């Protein structure tokens, strides 16, 4: 399985994502620079966290207008699976693949924490290895993770079961309906603020992120030795 990790000049979780997916047997991940115009070779495309263009203009706004995003949108329309994490989620809303927007955290501060999340729907490409309603822990680290959209969009997200993750218990950033991650209508594009690539082994504090990659890579492995 070939997997692209898109790299913008200010991406900073690119190597974390790369390590995470490459830790699975049979996965061939590679870095793809933002000027690339063709993503035809890839089965999975990952938009990493970071500050693609230093959050100038708006987080994700400039990245959404780069050559690689045009290619990504075409790939997504063909049904290729796409995950945008943190800044990647912001890029996906900015380019219109996902509805809504991410605004500044309600507390106005950047937050780095390990919140609880509810797996709202395990009937997706990305969550099949979780139990329905399971509460997991995934790290967050963002200043603009407060998800918002209009009422009609929210109703659609709810009725079409496109809310994949919700904050469980404390809502760290003020997100509408406690939303932490959503998919597009077709279900092949996932955007989420939490970082599954930071939750790959118990020494990191949680390994709850592994199953997300196992789900989308459609494989299952015993987790490696915790050390």
């Amino acid at each position, binding site marked *: 399985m070939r997997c692209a990790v898109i790299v913008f*000049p*200010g991406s*900073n*979780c690119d*190597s*974390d994502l790369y*390590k*995470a997916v490459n830790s699975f047997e049979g996965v061939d991940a590679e870095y793809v620079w933002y000027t690339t115009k063709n993503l035809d070779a890839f089965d999975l495309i990952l938009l990493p*966290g*970071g*500050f693609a*263009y*230093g*959050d*100038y203009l708006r987080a994700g706004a400039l990245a959404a207008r780069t050559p690689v995003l045009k290619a990504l949108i075409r790939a997504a329309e063909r049904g290729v699976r796409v995950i945008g994490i943190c800044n990647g989620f912001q890029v996906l809303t900015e380019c219109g693949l996902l509805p809504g927007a991410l605004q500044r955290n309600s507390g106005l*501060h*950047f*937050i*780095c*924490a390990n919140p609880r999340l509810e797996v709202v729907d395990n009937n997706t490409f990305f969550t099949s290895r979780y139990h329905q309603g399971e509460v997991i822990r995934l*790290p967050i*680290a963002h*200043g603009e993770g407060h998800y918002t959209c209009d009422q009609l969009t929210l109703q659609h997200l709810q009725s079409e079961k496109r809310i994949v993750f919700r904050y469980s218990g404390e809502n760290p950033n003020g997100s509408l309906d406690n939303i932490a991650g959503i998919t597009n209508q077709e279900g092949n594009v996932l955007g989420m603020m939490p*970082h599954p*690539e*930071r939750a*790959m082994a118990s*020494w*990191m504090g949680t390994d709850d992120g592994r199953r997300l990659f196992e789900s989308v890579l459609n494989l299952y492995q015993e987790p490696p030795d915790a*050390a």
Partner: protein
Amino acid sequence: MPPEPSPDQIAEQSTYLQLGLSDSEYSKVVDLLGRRPNMTETGIYGVMWSEHCSYKTSRTELSRFPTTGPCVMQGPGEGAGVVDLGDGWAAVFKVESHNHPSAIEPYQGAATGVGGILRDIFSMGARPVAFLNSLRFGPLKASAGNEVTSAKRNRYLFGRVVSGIADYGNCIGVPTVAGEVGFDRCYSGNPLVNAMCVGIVRHQDLQHGTAAGIGNPVIYVGAPTGRDGIHGATFASVELNEKSESRRPAVQVGDPFLGKLLLETCLEMYRCGAVVSVQDMGAAGLTCSSTEMALKGRVGMELDLDRVPQRAQEMTPYEIMLSESQERMLLVAEAGREEEIFTICRKWGVPACTIGRVVGEPILILKHHQKTVAELPLDKLLESCPVYRREAVKSAEITERQKKPAVSWQSPEDFASLLREMLVLPELASKRWVYRQYDSMVRTCTAVGPGSDAAVVRIEGTPKSLAMSIDGNARYVHLDPLRGGRIAVAEAARNVVCAGARPLALTNGMNFGNPEKPEIFWQFRETVRGMCEACESLGLPVTGGNVSFYNETGGEPVYPTPVIGVIGLVEQHEHVTTQDFKEAGDVILLLGETREEFGGSAYQQYRGGRISGMPPELDLDTERRLQTALLAAIRKGLVKSSHDLSLGGLALALLTSSTDELGIHMDLQTEMKPESAFFSETQSRAIIGVSPDLLAPLEDLMHQNQVLFTRVGVVMPGRFDLALNGRILIEEDLLGLRDLWLNGLERIMNSMVVDNPSHLKAA
């Protein structure tokens, strides 16, 4: 813009005084050159001979530090120190202060402090892997002697400094993994902002700042030069006063996105092999980087200032040379390979151009508009810098303070209330409000993040990790700099040992008042002496650091504040140890001996409202035995949790080891007064959690190393109960106490009330 003064006018109108040269220093420059220097040349001498760049006052004292050891690959002198980690890996690390800029523009001052130390690390060829910081502010609450306006200002400074650090580090993608924050009236108006960065590098990829190769191009990489930060280094070398606000233009503005681009550009450039040497343009910008690189290589440089990228119009040579615009690097490349470098710079969108070349004669030649505007022999610029031996006198005030009794209050009755009051003090409360704003996990190598004695960062592809801590208790130093200096080093090293690491080396940030005052210089000298003793005894070399003098407002100095950054090596992942309790029923042991020592303690400050007496004693043999035995026990797998005792003594250590689930049932057999047992800050102590079945081997090991220990109690779910000799003195629900402690600082910062501390008790 008025024309620049001529060399004669500079002499006659004493313009050199504004440029940072004293009368005698100016005369020395005239003698050295055999003529009167022009404006540009005078400015260059002014910054290169500033305290910040030349260490002219501190140099003789700093030379006492041990700087060599088996693991030291680079001691003081380059951008940062380098220590060997084995297997071809090295760690690069340094601390630097950004106090004065942060006092007048806290957000940018702190952000550029982070950016500056970052560039010091990657200028050595290393990939930065962790940030740490040590901060000091005035009190956040109004009280007698601390006006409401002052408390508000302190909150503003605190909040903005933290934001500045967070925004820069988070954007760069380097985790901020550890730090400390202290509060005291002496820092009102002159906060301290010390930033530390740690990087790792393969031995063969180390870079240096030694220019070489006559005819090689000198290449400027990074942000265009503006008028910001002109004479920042000189500004750092005077006291703050009411006119300091007008120095706002001397504060640089940071751009973390460009900093990130510059970092990636440089690391990629090094890999292409065309870079001969590289140095960050930090303090004194182009002046310092060009002259230092040339002097280290015993060569000269000719620079054409018209080619320096500029973002302001009609900049003079003086301004171009002295600007401290951020995110700039200077490098010497192999002649003929410039295009390889420019290709990489274009990929990352970072401006770069050739601005000069290396020449054989050790001389700095500056051209501007086809004219030579400066011609300075380099040896006469740097090596002739005056060295001052300042007078050092122990002030009568210090002697007086030391003689005052340490205890000036009645023994308390209600220890539970006392504990609740103390653990919401900004000094003692959890710093979660601060570190939640820092991304501590990016790069996914952080094994232990903020909130433990030391942070631990894995070295990828090896079984090893780096442990790191930054620490310094200025109250002890204020009472007695010799002891305080010793304690500062010992405690930072102890933190790293508690995490399961062998301490390797240290970097220091020395924050003091005006060294021209004999009592300040005495503090400095004695602190260095104490630190040296501890370094020698614990086998810790000093690989670099930073001195920040003139930390005074309105003539009032800050406490002498040495900040010690220690890095240590964890040999195996399973040695990594944190301070939190692990399992109900584990036995908690107190290692070390407890005496009634309140001088400079958090308890004394709280109960007495001031500090007096002598700080705790520190016996270096005892300390070394404790550290050796604790590390051995951790490596044998006998220790489940480990926590150094510091501020607030045993009571606070037990609380900060508790988790939401696991607390303590303590019953200590002691002849001491309860307040001493709970709050004394005797040194060379730690609490460890031990599985009951491993107690025997652990106790044997402590006996062998002559480390005293006491059974304190057992880990107990949901409770925080402390008894002495069977009598319960504190009996608290754990979650309630944890809530007060964890959220204490956040409640203060979110509250509009600055002058009524009682709301905190109600919380």
